[in-house]
């Protein structure tokens, strides 16, 4: 293979998936491509298989693991959007960082992985969601990239509109809750700092997926190796290695830390560094497998024990906080418990929701559900014909349903509070709730004189929140959706030509 081909291939893949995944957070992006983009991400695929048993997800996870066993951590540089993000930072930094070999932080990374696995088994996705590179990247798009693009787009929109050009449309600014931003900013700062100082150290110290793939690639078939006969010990390969896994002095490459960027292949002036299958067991590997020493193991297990205790405590806390009843979960999520146990808070649904009803939560779902999106009927309502979030969800926390199925999912039930209603309070017409109701669960019935007042039929209600969203009553809304913790099926009203309206005589009735 020609020198440089592998790196070119890696860059092409990396750019393609980075762009694809970034664009998938924008609403106009084609649905098929969005589906394709999320099927390239290991953690969401794993969750989808682990909780829902989707076979396609299993096949893809196995495929990715097989690739790792054969070729090493291809995912980390070919598919991972967070890897792409870090590579951009590394690339744009001037002066260029000179990397140097460092021993792998095995204790740290194994501990984190054990914590993640234990929390996963004890039923909390919180830690995995917080550290998963795909979900982290989703939050970077949601909190950083999207607001920037929206601001630029909207300023251009105004400039163009003033000159009578209507090419752009105003975009919605995502909700930015300062409190929910703190943990995000912490980890983002860490990622940016590490990538600028030490390359892919996040991937090799904290990222649980990186650690897992590292374990799978300890004995991978295709390896980066230094040909000792050609090597001049110039150290160039070591200085370009983002993963800091090449020891040019001892002529050894830590293949479980290597993210397969193939920079070293291009950089080596004497072509002494090679990527090729190697059947024989190499000695230096012994060094790596020391990682799980007894001391490490005890430390990890001890930490994990404490952690799982905290985890169980958090898990069993009932959602208490501002409201006693949590807000509804998106249609297709089946129940609050199922939803919380599968969502990694990547905010792909939030960014694809056309009405902004899906918003990152804080404590709306209690401690266990921190950051995962909730239905906020003050921001918007769930559009009757829309299944965007069901199609988008990469972990199947929101399980896909057809439009017709979705129209019958009851995520909550309408409740009318007459005392707050404009019609009752002011004796004027309103009817905002009834006109927006897609299922006729809210209708207007005769009241005083020609006035009409809302009446509800909760069995027909799907809990879309449109009535709550538009109710103009102040300070308290007169119509609300009460959450179904477990989703139900709404009844469909039978429709007959109701009234005799429109049956005027032949000719003009005036």
């Amino acid at each position, binding site marked *: 293979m020609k020198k440089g081909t592998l790196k070119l291939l890696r860059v092409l893949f990396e750019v393609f998936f980075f762009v694809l995944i970034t664009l998938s957070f924008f609403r106009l992006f084609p649905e098929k491509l969005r589906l394709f983009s999320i099927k390239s991400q290991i953690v969401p695929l794993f969750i989808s298989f682990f909780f829902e048993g989707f076979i396609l997800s299993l096949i893809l996870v196995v495929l990715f693991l097989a690739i790792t066993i054969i070729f090493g951590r291809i995912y980390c540089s070919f598919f991972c959007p967070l890897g792409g993000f870090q590579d951009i930072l590394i690339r744009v930094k001037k002066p260029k960082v000179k990397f140097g070999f460092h021993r792998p932080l095995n204790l740290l990374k194994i501990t984190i992985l054990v914590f993640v696995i234990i929390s996963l088994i004890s039923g909390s996705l919180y830690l995995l969601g917080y550290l998963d590179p795909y979900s982290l990247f989703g939050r970077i798009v949601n909190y950083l990239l999207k607001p920037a693009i929206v601001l630029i787009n*909207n300023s251009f929109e*105004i400039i163009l509109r003033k000159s*009578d050009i*209507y090419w752009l*449309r*105003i975009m919605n600014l995502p909700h930015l809750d300062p409190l929910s931003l703190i943990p995000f900013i912490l980890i983002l700062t860490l990622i940016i700092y590490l990538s600028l100082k030490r390359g892919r150290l996040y991937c090799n110290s904290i990222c649980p997926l990186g650690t897992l793939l590292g374990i799978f690639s300890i004995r991978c078939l295709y390896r980066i190796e230094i040909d000792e006969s050609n090597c001049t010990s110039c150290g160039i390969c070591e200085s370009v290695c983002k993963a800091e896994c090449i020891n040019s002095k001892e002529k050894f490459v830590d293949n479980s830390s290597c993210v397969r960027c193939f920079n070293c292949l291009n950089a080596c002036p004497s072509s002494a560094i090679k990527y090729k299958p190697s059947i024989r067991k190499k000695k230096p590997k012994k060094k790596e497998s020391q990682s799980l020493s007894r001391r490490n193991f005890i430390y990890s297990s001890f930490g994990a024990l404490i952690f799982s205790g905290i985890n169980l405590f958090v898990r069993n806390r009932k959602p208490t906080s501002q409201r006693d009843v949590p807000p509804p979960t998106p249609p297709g999520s089946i129940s609050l418990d199922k939803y919380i146990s599968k969502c990694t808070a990547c905010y792909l649904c939030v960014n694809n929701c*056309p*009405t902004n009803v899906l918003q990152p939560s804080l404590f709306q779902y209690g401690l266990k559900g921190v950051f995962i999106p909730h239905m906020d009927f003050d921001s918007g309502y769930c*559009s*009757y*014909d*829309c299944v965007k979030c069901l199609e988008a969800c990469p972990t199947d926390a929101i399980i896909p349903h057809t439009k017709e199925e979705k129209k019958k999912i009851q995520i909550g039930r309408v409740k009318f509070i007459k005392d707050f209603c*404009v*019609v009752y309070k*002011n004796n*004027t*017409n*309103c*009817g*905002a709730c*009834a*006109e*927006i*109701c*897609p*299922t*006729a669960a809210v*209708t*207007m019935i005769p009241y005083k004189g*020609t006035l*009409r007042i809302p009446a509800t039929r909760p069995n027909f209600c799907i809990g879309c929140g449109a009535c709550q969203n*538009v109710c*103009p*009553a*102040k300070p308290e809304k007169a119509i609300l959706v009460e959450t179904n913790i477990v989703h139900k099926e709404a009844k469909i009203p039978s*429709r*007959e*030509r*109701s*009234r*005799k*309206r*429109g*049956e*005027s005589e032949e*000719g*003009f*009735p*005036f």
Partner: protein
Amino acid sequence: MNRRDFLKQVFSLTAVAGISSIFKSNPLLAAEKESNINKTPDMVAVKNGTPEKMFDKGIEALGGMKNFIKKGQTVVVKPNIAWVANPEGAADTNPKLVKRIIEHCFEAGASRVYVFDHTCDDCFSTYPASRIEKAAKEAGATVVHANKESYYQEVRVLGAHTLKNVKVHELILESDVFINVPILKHHGSTRMTCALKNLMGVVWDRFYYHRTDLDRCIAEFPLYRKPDLTIVDAYNILTDGPRARSLKDVVKKEMQLLSKDMVALDVAASKILGEPTENIKYIKIASDLGVGNSNLDGLNIKRITL
């Protein structure tokens, strides 16, 4: 000509002039004369045709679009695009009618034609679903959105009692000609949505209307600006609206009304819908405010059956 002939002629001419001046006060002849001078009717009602055909005939009876648009003027066409529904659902104005109106605007010399509505459902769904976006673009109009507050500017409504200030879409302020194209529908609380109520789609805060006094706000908005022409789409009407829930509620009437007077149009429309006019409170309020004439008997209505 001799002197006698001259005198005879002068005398006879004077006599004719005198007699004609006497006859001038005759109501019969006067009415005939007035209708000759001002023969454009107050309202045109058309029946039994496609939306395009009915509009062609209707606007012809009003003297053509050139009576409303001068060369080089900008025009806003404001249909009802509030709901996600296809044209058969009759929740939004008929796209074919919108298209035909825009074509007439350009024929009359309009420099630009804008189409927008402040929708109830998400406009990125309603514009395509109603097929108005496509039809308007085909006819050469500029389709504009109205889903964000930054499109709106606050204006004062002189003479209003409840709607003293209102945020109006900037194109209503900037455009020379304003054409209102409602579809006639039943409405759960106000009983009917047609000419007057369609103007809720040019303001930002509809919920101020709902919260404060819906009927009164609807009636007061035209004190700020009346459309230069309103065309009521009553081809298919929705008898249980305003949202399209079932095709069983759609009645095919094949009618169209054209006028400058929205109150008169709403009275006529209520009769087509079969809803007692007195149930629709905003009509009376608007009539009392002098927005238009609710007494159809006093109007010159031209009825055309195709």
